């Protein structure tokens, strides 16, 4: 029985994993990869499969777990965002040498733009660095198929394989047909072989040699992988311009050329950037006078082309070196190249006037902001009010948006709220300067990378206040559970691990829990923490600001609705707009005071505590 569903690209990948008989899937959520595991759960439940799934505490943990599954002979996968692969890099580099038994596929989703990441890094380079093959799908359907291909290659050549979907694959939606999914009954077995699985440097050299041999063989296979690597040259014909593209840019270019009925520009599609199908590329280049390379996000293919004087791309300035290659950008850059080569251009866009109009309208810049009712806003308000002169180190999650409230000064990487705070502390302490520092980190980020930094801070005698913003979920990426909840990826019960115990285990003696909705109490606890941090007998102070996320738990977050209104006592001091910045509060020019947008207000009533004039009151 075949059915058709409109799947998210990440859903198509999940489907591909199950169709490929993947028995173990691990992941740490991160945009644009977060929906893969939930889709695996949904599909495996509807197909009655017993796939083992887990939200791991971080990407390295996820990859180690999946790797172990693979060397028991099972098919395993591990899903993450591109910067998550940095965290898992230690595992990846070594796993490439050791090799696999059952198929092992690592899905690392890239974010050109970047839309929701700290860098625009290109996973294909990580694959090259680790010496593992990488596949680059150009739409959800292809991503689904390539998961199976990756699994087969991994198992045939005993090597981990990376699938690199870009955000427009992961977050595209496409109608996909699929039939029943068969269960894979492969049983776990582990054959001891310490020379391989616990290889010392002497054996690593041997393994490196084996890895190089595998890559050569895979390279040959990729030359003939005509379903995914192909061109449309007519034999014997010469062309003035050819385009080499992979991933999403291939889809965009393909659509343009067919809309414009252009047969004078051949295209080479590269779906396996590494190992690179060199002969195929050489054949294509020899038929073209010039070649334009359009790829996301970096210059991976461009670097690998030998006949350099033919190549147009980022290095020659024909393709932008940063930002997403959205269709109109690709359209414009191809047109420039066509004009430069005196070829017939595409139908030009007449969008100058309308682009100018949008500029002239001076539309408000919509920066992302914490949701109405978000408990993190209340915590930031209290922190900023109590310690306005502090350095505010923060971290990755919704609460990065605390920067709108003037309560976030630094964001480096997962866990750096704590490690940078200790770094700041020691730098100032060296000069005998008592610099106040308040670090903020989310619950999931703390589980991911917080403990090692906290241990380090306590051990090395750093003094600062750490506020763990505990909203009982991984909010930014779509409400995945954290270890604190005791709910596992498939919805089953797990062991709940309270943050307090971990913090105490890190050697912290000052641990307080507060509901940040109570701003007064939060402020008084912060004051107590300040004293403790300064006290010669004190140390690190940790406050857990715990209140359920208003999106994940709307009822629990606001058990008693408080409908508020604004009285004429409002003096337009704008403290509520600038220091609290609830999107439901806005300046009403007609009324000459602040007003409430009922369409988005969630009646949390927290703003009552914020107005210095008492002009925000409950109705």
């Amino acid at each position, binding site marked *: 029985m075949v059915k058709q569903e409109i799947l998210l690209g990440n859903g198509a990948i999940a489907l591909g994993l199950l169709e490929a008989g993947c028995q173990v899937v691990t992941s740490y959520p991160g945009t644009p990869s977060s929906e893969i595991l939930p889709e695996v759960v949904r599909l495996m439940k509807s197909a009655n499969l017993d796939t083992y799934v887990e939200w791991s505490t971080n990407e390295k943990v996820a990859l180690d777990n999946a790797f172990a599954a693979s060397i028991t002979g099972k098919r395993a996968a591990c899903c993450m965002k591109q910067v998550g692969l940095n965290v898992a890099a230690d595992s990846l580099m070594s796993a490439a040498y050791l090799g696999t038994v059952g198929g092992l596929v690592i899905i690392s989703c890239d974010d050109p733009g970047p839309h929701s990441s700290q860098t625009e890094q290109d996973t294909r380079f990580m694959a090259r660095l680790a010496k593992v093959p990488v596949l680059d799908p150009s739409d959800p359907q292809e991503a689904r198929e390539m998961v199976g291909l990756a699994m087969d290659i991994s198992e045939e050549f005993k090597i981990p394989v990376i699938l690199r979907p870009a955000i427009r694959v992961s977050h595209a*939606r496409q*109608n996909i047909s699929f039939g029943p999914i068969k269960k894979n009954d492969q049983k776990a077995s582990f054959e001891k072989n310490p020379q391989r699985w616990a290889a010392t440097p002497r054996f690593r050299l041997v393994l490196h040699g084996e890895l190089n041999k595998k890559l050569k063989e895979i390279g040959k296979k990729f030359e003939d992988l005509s379903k995914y690597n192909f061109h449309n040259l007519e034999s014997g014909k010469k062309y003035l311009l050819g385009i080499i593209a992979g991933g999403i840019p291939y889809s*965009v270019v393909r659509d343009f050329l067919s809309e414009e009925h252009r047969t004078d520009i051949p295209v080479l599609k590269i779906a396996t950037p590494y190992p690179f199908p060199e002969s195929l590329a050489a054949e294509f280049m020899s038929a073209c006078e010039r070649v334009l390379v359009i790829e996301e996000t970096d210059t991976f293919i461009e670097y690998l082309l030998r006949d350099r004087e033919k190549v147009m791309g980022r290095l020659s300035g024909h393709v932008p070196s940063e930002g997403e290659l959205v269709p109109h950008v690709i*359209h414009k850059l191809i047109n420039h190249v066509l004009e430069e080569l005196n070829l017939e251009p595409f139908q030009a866009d007449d969008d100058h006037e309308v682009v100018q109009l949008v500029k002239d309208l001076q539309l408000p810049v919509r920066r*992302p*902001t914490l949701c109405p009712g978000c408990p993190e806003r209340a915590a930031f308000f209290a922190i900023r009010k109590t310690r306005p002169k502090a350095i505010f180190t923060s971290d990755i999650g919704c609460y990065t948006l605390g920067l709108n409230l003037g309560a976030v000064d630094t964001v480096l990487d997962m866990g750096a709220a704590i490690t940078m705070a200790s770094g700041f502390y020691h730098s100032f302490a060296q000069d005998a300067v008592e610099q106040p520092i308040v670090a903020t980190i989310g619950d999931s980020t703390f589980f991911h990378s917080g403990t090692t930094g906290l241990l380090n801070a306590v051990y090395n005698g750093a003094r600062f206040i750490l506020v763990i913003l505990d909203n009982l979920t991984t909010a930014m990426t779509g409400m995945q559970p954290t270890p604190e909840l005791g709910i596992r990826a498939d919805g089953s019960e797990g062991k709940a691990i309270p943050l307090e115990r971990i913090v105490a285990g890190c050697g912290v003696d000052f641990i307080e829990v507060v509901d940040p909705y109570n701003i007064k109490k939060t402020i008084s606890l912060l004051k107590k923490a300040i004293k403790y941090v300064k006290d010669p007998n004190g140390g690190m102070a940790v406050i857990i600001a715990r209140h359920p996320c208003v999106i994940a738990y709307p009822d629990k977050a606001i058990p008693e609705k408080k409908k508020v209104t604004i009285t004429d006592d409002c003096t337009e001091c704008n403290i509520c707009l600038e220091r609290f910045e609830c*999107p439901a509060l806005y300046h009403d020019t007609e009324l000459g005071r602040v007003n409430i947008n*009922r*369409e988005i207000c969630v009646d949390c009533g927290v703003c009552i505590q914020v107005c210095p004039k008492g002009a925000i009151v409950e109705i």
Partner: protein
Amino acid sequence: METINIILSGLGGQGILFMTRVLAQAALDKGFNVMGAETHGMAQRGGSVVSHLRLGEVKNSLVRTGTAHFLLSLEENEGYRNLPFLSQGARMYVNTNSRHFPREEAKELMDKRKIIYRSIHAGTIAQESGAPRSSNLALLGYFSAFDEGPIGYKDIKTTIDTISPKKFKDINLKIFEAGYRRGKNF
């Protein structure tokens, strides 16, 4: 058959993903090939959000500027922001309470590009129906009343009925109907 390109815009939290899902499913049920692009992650937190929906034989999920046939915007400024996507003669449906829609500065160019624009107080309709955060359904109802798109009132209504969570089904249909009636009264 020519590809139909639709842009849906608004602010994070206004329910653009649900609106996109409804149209995509309704189109699929009518036999279209569906390709779409969504916004997830950081941008969903109150920022500008855009969904792309393409019906036809296409490989790429993003609409190119100047080629969209329809724009449904849950917020007026976000509607203007996405004007560059619209093709000549495109149709635009906007949720706004302003009595001065479209803004004078925009009107001339929109008329020149033969863009047909319509506005509805979808937010007010949703609020009156008791679900102030469901203006997305009122706008869908309004859109369906003009029957200018490839998917009509009945298709969309059936889809809302099928894919709404049980708890919200009745209220979703009620607000959709209210939007539809507002469109029909014109």
